[in-house]
């Protein structure tokens, strides 16, 4: 693995599993020092032992916890170059007809407020970097920002909202001369524990798996490490001219109609 991220410090939210954990590994492989947040302390301990990353038990939607987290990071690393706003949930989601207010509030809190807080605090830290302002922020949206699901209404809405957040933040950071770039990635179905869980707990797991796989004309889901290369690219100085972009990575799931 080349070392495009040598000397850089990264923060990844929701880093204990799925795309987040795979990204911890990938950024470490490329030479970055990595801090990650999450809720599963056991998984976190393993990942820290494996990669040398540091774990910070913070819930992204907890506005009061952020200043302390940023102080910790500052003490540990002294700078921040990369932030991957990755933590997301679909717990409690439903259709417009049946979603509960608790379900809605939870998803908005994690997927939308959590991303806003991540970008806000990351941007402030990056602005104060020793040697001058600069950094790369990547927001993990979803292809469902472009193609809403009827039975995951709040997920679809929040993933769409963070694209506008990405563009607004990108423009602000660019127009104020901060050298901080903000971009969104929109993955298709990635086979993470979240998806495996949904499949296993469905009425007909075989049919559900087939349904997920058929969303992409490639007839498969992505593996987590097929997403991390894009995050690493956007994190690196190679992407210096990229800001305010939304990159779909979905095996052509949203490229159009599959035909009959």
């Amino acid at each position, binding site marked *: 693995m*080349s070392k*495009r991220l040598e000397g850089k410090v990264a923060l990844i939210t929701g880093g204990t599993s799925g795309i987040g954990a795979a990204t911890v590994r990938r950024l470490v492989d490329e030479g970055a020092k990595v801090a990650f947040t999450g809720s599963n302390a056991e998984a976190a301990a393993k990942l820290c032992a494996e990669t040398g990353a540091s774990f910070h038990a913070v819930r992204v939607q907890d506005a009061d916890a952020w200043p302390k987290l940023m102080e910790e990071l500052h003490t540990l690393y002294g700078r921040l170059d990369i932030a991957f706003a990755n933590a997301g949930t679909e717990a409690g989601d439903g259709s417009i007809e049946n979603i509960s207010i608790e379900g809605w509030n939870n998803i908005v809190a994690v997927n939308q407020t959590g991303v806003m807080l991540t970008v806000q605090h990351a941007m402030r830290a990056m602005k104060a970097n020793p040697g001058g302002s600069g950094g790369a922020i990547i927001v993990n949206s979803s292809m469902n920002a472009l193609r809403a699901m009827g039975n995951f209404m709040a997920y679809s809405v929040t993933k769409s909202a963070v694209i506008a957040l990405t*563009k607004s933040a*990108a*423009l602000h950071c*660019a*127009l104020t*001369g901060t*050298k901080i*770039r903000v971009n969104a990635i929109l993955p*298709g179905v990635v086979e993470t524990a979240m998806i495996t869980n949904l499949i296993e707990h469905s009425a007909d797991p075989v049919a559900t798996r087939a349904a997920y796989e058929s969303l*992409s*004309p*490639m*007839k498969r889901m*992505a*593996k987590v490490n*097929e*997403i991390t*290369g*894009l995050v*690493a*690219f956007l994190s690196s100085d*190679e*992407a*210096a*001219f*990229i*800001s*305010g*972009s*939304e*990159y*779909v*990575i*979905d*095996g*052509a799931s*949203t*490229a*159009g*109609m*599959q*035909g009959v």
Partner: protein
Amino acid sequence: MKRLQGRVALVTGGLRGIGGATVDRLLDEGAVVIIADLKPASDEVVQATLQRLGQASSYVQLNVTSEADWQSAAETVRRDFGRLDILVGNAGIDGVGSVDTMPYETWKRVMAVNIDGLFLGTKYFAPLMTETGAKTRGGASIINISSIMGMVGWVDASPYNASKGAARLFTKATALEFARKGIPIRVNSVHPGFIRTPLLQEGMDRAAEDPSVGATAQDMLATLDQGTPIGRIGEASEIAAGIAFLASDDASFMTGSELVIDGGWTAQ
């Protein structure tokens, strides 16, 4: 980075600008690179370029609008290299002016280079790339160079806009078609914003000749710097980096996607 060791790439319009930077980058990544452009192979510029780039580079004279040129290039590449992993459809021209006075010839020329060229390249290289794609984890990769002007309109650029919009959707159609049929070729488009290349310089020089514009090429380039949110136009190497990513196995799940690389221009 050496993500493309053992891979073979062909870059149309590879003698200068974004194409030239792409050739450099793919070579750096370890690929064998075939430059395809208009000049005859014996041309000094071609010879000097091959000399500079060394053994892993070669040249084929190819006008992207010529079906016969594509057919013979496909035969040559099959015979000499036995594979094609990466096809970069980069050759492109602009065509400016208002619709009412634009010669139909201009429209047809821009369409021929910017979109017929992508159709012909995809058509004639798909068979070889299908075989090659089965040999690597990420499959073969076609990268079509559209533009931000394939996404948003621009005054007095109707043929360019139309051809680049066509490139964007031709990319999605072929990505879907190949994926659906299990053909191991990924197809993605790249949408550069304003990039410092001979094309852009010549466009500005031409515009500056019109006295009613009342600005020098340099003034206009400065205006583009200021109009780009991050405060500067891009460099060709910054587009080449995105192309190299799409060419590599790092992008194995990426097909039918569009990479906008524009310093925030279209986020505004």
